[in-house]
């Protein structure tokens, strides 16, 4: 088959594009968040003392970290999924969440007595945190990977890993409203570990499912 013949077939296959990739990705992220929330609210739900918690800086800080992770991963992912798009500032934005977390950990270590460190770190829900964040991120991760298949990530493994970061950012934001462990020490240990699990899974899935 000559290349000119192939072009005939491609032209015959032309259809009007209903959705551009941007819309597909944004819808998938929104759908993933809805799926995660639908799983979260009836089973776990927000903690009963949420009104008081909202007045504490430690509780609010959890969302600063999880939301900055989600936003930066989302922005970077949109660049990674389109060939020839520079990642620009988004690659740098991704270090915002870990940087904020390190600053908070240092502050916590300075502000609290040594004797309380281990109980702050171990908390009361460590195992739940480690299980529930990856579970909650399954829905978002599936939606995002599906959307990425409509894009063309030049590095499938990397795009999958960043999809994992975004999915765990969404899951951790929800879980943080339920979790009563608010210390940055807990956050840095267990939330990070849970995020790492989801990111590795995203990498493994992406490397296989996102080739084109």
């Amino acid at each position, binding site marked *: *088959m000559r290349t000119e013949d192939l072009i005939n*077939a491609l032209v015959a296959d032309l259809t009007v*594009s209903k959705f551009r990739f941007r819309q597909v990705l944004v819808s998938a992220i929104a759908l993933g968040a809805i799926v995660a929330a639908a799983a979260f609210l009836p089973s776990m739900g927000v903690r009963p003392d949420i009104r008081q918690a909202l007045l504490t800086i430690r509780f609010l800080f959890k969302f600063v970290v999880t939301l900055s992770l989600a936003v930066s991963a989302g922005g970077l992912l949109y660049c990674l999924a389109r*060939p020839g*798009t520079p990642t620009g500032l988004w690659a740098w934005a991704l270090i915002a969440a870990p940087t904020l977390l390190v600053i908070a950990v240092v502050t916590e270590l300075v502000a609290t007595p040594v004797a309380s460190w281990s109980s702050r770190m171990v908390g009361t829900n460590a195992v739940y945190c480690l299980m529930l964040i990856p579970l909650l991120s399954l829905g978002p991760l599936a939606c995002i990977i599906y959307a990425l298949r409509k894009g063309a990530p030049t590095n499938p493994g990397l795009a999958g890993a960043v999809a994992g970061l975004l999915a765990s950012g969404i899951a951790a934001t929800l879980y943080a409203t339920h979790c009563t462990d608010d210390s940055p020490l807990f956050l840095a240990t267990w939330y990070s570990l849970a995020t790492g699990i989801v990111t590795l899974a995203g990498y493994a899935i992406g490397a296989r499912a996102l080739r084109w």
Partner: protein
Amino acid sequence: MALKGAEEEWALLMHRAIDGDSAAYRRLLASLTPVLRTVTRRNCARIGLDGGEAEDIVQEVLLAIHLKRDSWDTDRPIGPWIMTITRNKLIDARRRRGNRQVQQVDDLADILTAEGSEDAMDRQDIDRLLERLGERPRDLVRSLSVEGRSVQETAARLKMSEGAVRVALHRAIKTLAALYRGDGP
């Protein structure tokens, strides 16, 4: 400056293709092909691929441009999008050839037949891949490509509805792209 002009022309044609203008789409692919040919030939030599493989890579790039056209952000220049796709396909081709060479060490007959056929047109990957599509999809693709029939004519000839022809064509094109990267059925 000539390249800049070509890039603006491609972007314009792709805009129209996205809105469903097949004439613009044909012009776009026809105008891209010689440029892709030059780029792949030059790079095949540079990365140690046989020049005969260049046309296969051009076809693979066209398939990718076609299937991934929604990933071009219409606010951005189209040149980097096309060149990144091309570079990716060149890298894939080199990786594949690495694998193939390892396999050929065990099978002398393969090497001899490969060396025996000098005509580049005879040993194009796409024909081998078409063979693997199955009889019906292959007929359909040939009718629409080599034989240059329209969707309506093909539908009448194969006794299918036009919608079914379109669906089968799209599936066949996706399968071809998958076969190229080595994860076909």
